[in-house]
């Protein structure tokens, strides 16, 4: 059981745990954290694979760097979307409580 094998298994465990978390939780922030954990799991597996040779495989490292940047930009967008959705929902609820539900479909 070498260190790389251990970390590959741990990476897979985190991936599955995060997937399980994604399916179980309903709160958007927690689901986003789950997605980030999945990303971390995948990157851990990739780096464990890279560490199989003495100077670690530069291609895999480059892939992980690219993956990281994708992760941060997507997370930033997702968080902003979630907060704006929550604020919109919040103002919508208060507005609805104000004057009843505006039925948006067929005119009376």
């Amino acid at each position, binding site marked *: 059981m070498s260190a790389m094998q251990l970390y590959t298994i741990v990476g897979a465990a985190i991936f599955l745990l995060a997937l399980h978390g994604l399916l179980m939780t309903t709160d958007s922030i927690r689901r986003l954290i789950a997605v980030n954990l999945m990303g971390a799991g*995948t990157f851990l*597996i990739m780096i464990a694979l890279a560490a199989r040779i003495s100077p670690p495989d530069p291609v895999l490292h480059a892939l992980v760097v690219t993956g990281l940047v994708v992760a941060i*930009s*997507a997370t930033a967008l*997702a968080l902003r979307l979630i907060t704006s959705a929550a604020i*919109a929902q919040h103002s919508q609820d208060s507005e609805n409580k104000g004057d009843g539900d505006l039925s948006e*479909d067929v*005119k009376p």
Partner: protein
Amino acid sequence: MTYALVSLSVPLFCALLLTLAGPKLDSRHAGQIAIVCSALSLVAAWFALMQMAELNQTILLELGGWESGLAIRLRLNPLSSLLLLFTAFMHVLIGVYAAFSRQGVSRDFWPLSSFLHGSLAALWLSADLFNLYITLELLGLTAVAMVALAGKKAYKPAANYLILSLVASLFYLLGVALIYGRYGSLDVVLLSLQTQSDLLTRIALLIMTAGLMLKAALWPLHLWLPAAHANAPTAVSALLSGLVVKGPLFILFLLWSEVAPVDLAQQIGPVLAIAGMIALVAGGLSAMRSPYIKTLVAYSTVAQLGYAMMALGLLLTWQLPQMHVALWLFVIAHGLAKATLFLAAGEMQATLGTKRISGLRGATQTVPVAMFAFAVAGGSLIGLPPSGGFLAKWVLLQPLLSEPQNWPWAFGVLLGTLVSAAYIFRVVAISFDRARINPPDIRPDRVGHWLALLPALMVWGMALTGDWLIQLLAGSSV
């Protein structure tokens, strides 16, 4: 290959310039620039296609001049050049609609649609697994940003769409990592020589397929699509349904027809084909039940992707290369028809002031041209001759009907036709109701309606070029 690269980089440059110009340009000028760029890219794609038509063999390009394996490899074959042309053509059509219809779009639609065009072009040309991951991600983010254009009501579906799209990309990335770990190369052409069907490759390919099916909203994993596409602005939902869902499908096709070993592909074939058939029926049924116009059209996307999945599944089961002609004809015919469906639905929704189908009563009198466009595009989805949909269905049916033991699949196609006829004519029949007409809120925007009709006429015009298209696609087996 230079034409293809020009066709790829023109929209990217245009997108960057439009973001750079930012508030200086108002929506109309930005629109005109974007349309000119897509037209330029269309011309370049046409030359690439002509080059492909007479050369009729694949051009490979190792980026950066490094030897194969090290560098990212771009590949231009008749299929990818046709898809380039199709993407550019769709962007010109929808761009013209977005610019000149009264409904109009916000200024940021234009850089985003050029980004979409560029990332799709990069996806069609790429033959490197990780490069496909990045283009997939680019596609996902652009799609989410465009859904968010529709304002507050679209934020929740957009957030949900983004999270699921990220999960799908990570599944795909994990599969790529495992395959790289196993075979040590990311290049599709090299991998197709090396892959064997051992346990690890099987797991990796299954994980990647799950991710791609989630991204392309193929049947079991399609639940996010109706909310996202129905709440997006009109022009955006036309782009999403027509083009964005086709990217992951292309990668799925690449994965299973090239990278995967033959016996693995033959095992997954029937599964995909059956899933396609179920998608046809399930998507159709939920389309029939949905009370809203745009949700109906979104579910019809899920159903029509069932056709493509069935074609892909059967292509893999029997290893018949010419089956992929049917697959790509479906993709093109569905793209054009779906663009008109969404544009017409959006126009009717705006003019009649209702989201519901029951509000479409008397549409043939209040919004005649939009309803005509809806019916014509619906005709192509059903596969009535001489539309593009009919062409694709005809090519799909040929191998199915040649041997008696394949006839059950033909029955599946027949079922799909009837189901799609049911939900299309449900809307058309209501529109002929003259007893309780739903009067329009605003004067119908004549120009917008005619522009919405344009893609549908194109898909019916495909019949004239049908023969040439089939020869071209059949020429490039892969």
